[in-house]
């Protein structure tokens, strides 16, 4: 049996088969036995509303006037419905669409750096035998447990000495040195079948060719998942960009939101419009790749 999907493979964890459908029980069970199922759905519905209603309220508020956003009694429906908040943001003092582009560029750049460096390194750790392998792997894994605050001050000085303060390099390159990507891909590569690589090696293929033409194409799902996770984490990064980005036009959306919240502290509609703009891309990404994101995160505990 060629095991294409090893048990620890995050993106491919299959759902166990459902032994019996609740629909089948429904006919046999009297009503008072069905009560628990109804109660469970009620609890699930309440939890769902507790998550979705605040988000919906924010979206609706972004279409309200300043007065409407704080008027009493509060109504969920904007009256009048207006896009003034978005208009103010696009023409006002705070260059939010510049921040949006900065966030996109930083997310794309960091994702690219991680995919290239982590996949190359993971191939060596998964497939090659070399001196110092245990030490290298041990060092990388052990940093997974070190709180990031340790690196805050020294990395600030390093970035400063490289002349990277207030540039895209500051918010992409140090963040690409994390252990997660290389660890994640190593797990995946180990699970790939060896037979094809063996055959290629017997035919005289080099490691680089095997990596580029066999391992990478077989790893598309894992690479896609890592790309999405890397982009999300860069997009949402907050503390580091707050301190290493200085000029207003170089900010990304997350520190930008903090600036907005200070500049428009009583204009809730405008701040909420900013929050919507900062959330739409990640929510779209999440909707498209929900399964990959959730499964890969879920697997982190099972294999840990």
């Amino acid at each position: 049996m060629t095991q294409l999907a090893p048990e620890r493979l995050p993106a491919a964890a299959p759902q166990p088969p459902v032994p019996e459908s609740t629909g089948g029980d429904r006919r046999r069970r009297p009503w008072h036995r069905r009560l628990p199922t109804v109660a469970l759905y009620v609890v699930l519905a309440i939890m769902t509303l507790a998550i979705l209603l605040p988000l919906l309220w924010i979206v609706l508020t972004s279409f309200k006037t300043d007065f409407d956003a704080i008027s009493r009694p509060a109504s969920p429906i904007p009256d009048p419905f207006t896009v003034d908040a978005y208009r103010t943001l696009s023409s006002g003092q705070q260059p939010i669409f510049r921040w949006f582009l900065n966030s996109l560029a930083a997310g794309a750049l960091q994702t690219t750096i991680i995919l290239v460096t982590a996949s190359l390194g993971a191939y060596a750790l998964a497939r090659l035998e070399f001196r110092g392998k245990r030490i290298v792997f041990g060092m990388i894994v052990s940093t997974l447990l070190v709180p990031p605050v340790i690196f805050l001050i020294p990395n600030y000085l390093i970035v400063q000495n490289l002349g990277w303060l207030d540039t895209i390099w500051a918010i992409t390159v140090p963040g690409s040195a994390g252990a997660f990507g290389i660890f994640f891909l190593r797990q995946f590569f180990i699970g790939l079948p060896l037979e094809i690589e063996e055959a290629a090696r017997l035919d005289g293929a080099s490691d680089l060719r095997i990596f580029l033409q066999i391992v990478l194409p077989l790893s598309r799902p894992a690479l896609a998942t890592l790309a999405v996770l890397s982009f999300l984490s860069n997009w949402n990064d907050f503390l580091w960009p707050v301190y290493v980005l200085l000029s207003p036009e170089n900010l990304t959306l997350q520190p930008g939101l903090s600036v907005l919240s200070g500049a428009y502290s009583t204009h809730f509609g405008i701040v909420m419009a900013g929050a919507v703009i900062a959330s739409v891309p990640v929510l779209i990404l999440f909707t498209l790749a929900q399964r990959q994101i959730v499964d890969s995160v879920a697997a982190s505990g099972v294999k840990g």
Partner: protein
Amino acid sequence: MADTLLSPAARTSRSGRPGAPRRDLTAYAFLAPFLLLFAVFVLVPAVYGLVISLHRWNSLVPIHPFIGLQNYIDLVTPGSLTFSDFWSSMRATGIFTVFSVPLLIVVPLLAAVLLNQNLKGTTFFRGVFFAPYVLGVAVIGVIWKYLLDPQAGVVNHLLGLIGLPDQTPWTVDVPWAWVSLVGVTIWWTAGLNTVIVLAGLKGINADLYEAASLDGAGTLRKFLSVTLPGLRPVMIFVTTTTILASANMFGQSFLLTQGGPGNTTRSAIMYIADQGLAQGNMGAASAMSYVLFAVLAVISVINFRIQREKA
């Protein structure tokens, strides 16, 4: 079956097999780009931070004299410049961790059990519960600052409509600020732990439940005797990562309460970042980050020992 027999032969020159040909040069060529980044932004700063902490290092002053352990001594000397602010920030982080971690374990555990009942639509609910986690802390901070605003916020408004007090100072006074910080964090990250615990539940052997049923075990008995022991490794992981995450709390305080009232809810990370990067007091801030690291390491070890002994 056949490949089980074949696999030893197929595994020539493979990693892990003693005597496999070494390809040091190739391997390090593959690793070089990552190791360069790792060395410059992980290994070097880990040591550099220690060096900084041994100097009187103010970024506004060009000379940084070596002062040995003085920055650390200051942190444990009452009356020093940093003593009371640092420990009050450690206290804030401690309070937040003590109240958030148990809730961030119990709520996801219950939610995961709920999602594991073979109900229809669980994939949808799982996605919804997880969704807030993909939003950044800045988004979470500004939207809840509005929702929880004592005057303009809809939370107080709704509470008033159902006859409860409608003037609660959610973001500007304690203990309410703590309730808000913990509550918002649960709203934001409970879904993360839920999907991890859910994956752990799916991994428990169904035969164990069947055997327990045959022995006449009820629902509660099965939960205590099959579910909880089966979840132990996952729960150790979740507890460890949640403690680390809560101890690193920054954005919620920074945006929701601005560390206030006074500096009551200013977390350790918030104080370290402010001292080191905004005030330029880098030597002291580096020392603080190593003290925080040491405290967390001790807690992690204790947590790991306790949970393993239960096994």
